C-alpha cells in the first residue's frame, strides 16, 4: 500500500465523515421543514433564504450555551455518555460501500473505507454499542427521569436487536456473505433471470421487520420512548445542556443517516440503479451516478423516517415490548424457516 493509497483513503474518510455530519445537520432542518409541511405550516424561514442557515444558527447556539454538570452527577461518565453516543454513530459509516470503483488517472479508488468480510456483523456491533452512550449518560445524570429513559433505551434496543438480527439472518441465507460490498454487487442492476435483483423483492417480510427494528434502534417515533417528553421530561438527556445535548441529538440524526444507508445497501440495491450498464456510459460516470442514486435512496429513507414520525403516535411501553417479543421475533423466525424452505425446494 503506497503513500498515495493512504492519502486517498484518508481523504475518503474525511469526506465521508464530513458528509455524515452535514447530512445530520441538515436533517434537523429537514425534520422541522417536513414537520411543518405535514402540519400545513411553513417551518423555519428566517435564517437565510428558506431558513437554510438555521442549522448553523442552532449549532452556534448549542456551542455558546452554558455547560451545566449537575452537582450529583458523575462528571467523568456524564461527559463520556454523549461522546460515546456520537462516536458510535460516526464509525458505522466505515463499511458502507458508497459506490463502485472510481478510476482517477492510474489510481483505482474504492468508494468504501474498508471492505471487511464481517461488514454486517460490524454494523451490528456498532449499533449495539450505541446504547451505551444513552445508558451511561442517563445513569451518570443521577436523575430519576434520566435513569428511566436510559433503562427504557437499553431494554428497547436489546429487544429489537434480536428481531433485527433474525431478519438479517434470512437475508444472509440468500446472499451467503457478510460483506456489504458483495451484498451490493449481488444486487447489480435491477432485473435479472426473471426477477428483481434487489433484496427487498426477495425478502419483503424481512425488510419490513428490519425497518421497524431500525426505527426502534434509532429511538425514532413511534419508538422514541427513551426521550418521551410527556412522561420523562427529556428522558436520558434531561440533565444535559450545551453541546453535550447537541451531541445526543446529533447522534440520533447520524444514526438515522447510517441506518438509512444500511437499509439502502442491504435491501434496495445500494448504489445500483436500473439499466446501469445498458446506457453505454463510461465506468466512472456509472460510479458517480451510482453514488447519486445511493444518496437519493438514503434521503428517501430519511424522509420516510420523518414521515412516520409525524404520522404515528408513540407506543405505550407494554405495547412496545409486546410488538418486539410477541410479534416481530416469531415473524422473523417464521421468515427464516420460509426462506430456508423456498431456497431448498425451489432451486
Amino acid at each position, binding site marked *: 500500500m503506497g503513500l498515495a493509497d493512504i492519502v486517498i483513503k484518508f481523504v475518503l474518510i474525511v469526506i465521508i465523515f464530513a458528509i455524515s455530519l452535514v447530512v445530520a445537520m441538515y436533517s434537523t432542518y429537514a425534520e422541522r421543514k*417536513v414537520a*411543518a*409541511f*405535514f*402540519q*400545513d*405550516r*411553513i417551518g423555519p*424561514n428566517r435564517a437565510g433564504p428558506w431558513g437554510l442557515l438555521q442549522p448553523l444558527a442552532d449549532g452556534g447556539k448549542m456551542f455558546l450555551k452554558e455547560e451545566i454538570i449537575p452537582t450529583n452527577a458523575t462528571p467523568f461518565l456524564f461527559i463520556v455518555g454523549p461522546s460515546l453516543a456520537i462516536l458510535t454513530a460516526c464509525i458505522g459509516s466505515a463499511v458502507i460501500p458508497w459506490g463502485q470503483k472510481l478510476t482517477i488517472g492510474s489510481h483505482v479508488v474504492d468508494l468504501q473505507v474498508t471492505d471487511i468480510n464481517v461488514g454486517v456483523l460490524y454494523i451490528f456491533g456498532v449499533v449495539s454499542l450505541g446504547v451505551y452512550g444513552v445508558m451511561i449518560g442517563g445513569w451518570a445524570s443521577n436523575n430519576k427521569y434520566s435513569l428511566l429513559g436510559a433503562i427504557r433505551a437499553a431494554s428497547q434496543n436489546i429487544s429489537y436487536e434480536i428481531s433485527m438480527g433474525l431478519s438479517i439472518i434470512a437475508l444472509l441465507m440468500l446472499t451467503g456473505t457478510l460483506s456489504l460490498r458483495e451484498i451490493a454487487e449481488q444486487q447489480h442492476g435491477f432485473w435479472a433471470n426473471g426477477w428483481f435483483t434487489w433484496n427487498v423483492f426477495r425478502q419483503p417480510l424481512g425488510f419490513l421487520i428490519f425497518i421497524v427494528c431500525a426505527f426502534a434502534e434509532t429511538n425514532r417515533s413511534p419508538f422514541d420512548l427513551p426521550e418521551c417528553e410527556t412522561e420523562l421530561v427529556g428522558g436520558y438527556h434531561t440533565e444535559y445542556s450545551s453541546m453535550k445535548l447537541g451531541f445526543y441529538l446529533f447522534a440520533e440524526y447520524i444514526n438515522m443517516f447510517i441506518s438509512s444507508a444500511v437499509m439502502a445497501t442491504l435491501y434496495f440495491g445500494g448504489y445500483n440503479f436500473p439499466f446501469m450498464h445498458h446506457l453505454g456510459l463510461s465506468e466512472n460516470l456509472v460510479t458517480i451516478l451510482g453514488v447519486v442514486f445511493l444518496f437519493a435512496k438514503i434521503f428517501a429513507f430519511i424522509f420516510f423516517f420523518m*414521515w*412516520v414520525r*409525524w*404520522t*404515528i403516535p408513540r407506543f405505550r411501553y407494554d405495547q412496545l415490548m409486546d410488538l418486539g417479543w410477541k410479534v416481530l421475533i416469531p415473524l422473523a423466525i417464521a421468515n427464516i424457516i420460509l426462506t430456508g424452505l423456498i431456497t431448498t425446494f425451489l432451486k
Partner: protein
Amino acid sequence: MESLSNKRKVLEIKPLNFLERAYLPAIMGGLATTMKHFFKKPVTISYPEEKREFSENFRGMHSLKRDEDGKERCTACGLCALSCPAEAITMTAAERQPGEENLYREEKYAAVYEINMLRCIFCGLCEEACPKEAIYLDGDIVPADYLRKDFIYGKDKLVEAPLNQ
C-alpha cells in the same frame, strides 16, 4: 333514556380483526392522510410581511379626526373619558385663541389628549359617546414596545395627518 337531540349513536365494541391487529393497514391510512397535508397550501400568515384581512367592524388604534377644512373636531368635552370603562383616556382642555380658527373647529379644544393603550380594551364606547364624531378606532393593531410609558399615546400619535400636506 330517550336522547333529546336524536343524535345518539350506539357503539358496538367488537374485538379487533386480524388486519386491525396487524397495525399496518391503519398506519398506511395514516401515512396517506399526512401525505395529503404535505401538498396542501400552508395556512400560515407570515405576520409582519403579510397581514390577515380585518373584518369590517375591526377596532384598532384610535385616531382623532379633522373636519373637511382640516380643523380638529375634538372639543374636549370629556364624554369619551367618562364613557371609558377602562379609564384609559385623559385630556386637558384649552381655549382657542384668536388666529387659531383654522386649527380647531370649536372654541374649546384638547391641549393634551392621552390614551393609555395598555389600559384600553378597544370596546369602542368612546367612539359611541363622542358627540363631535372626533374619535374613531379605525387604525391598525397597536404595535409592541419596550417601555410602559411608551404606550401612553399623545396627540402626536393620535391626531390624523393634516389634509393638504
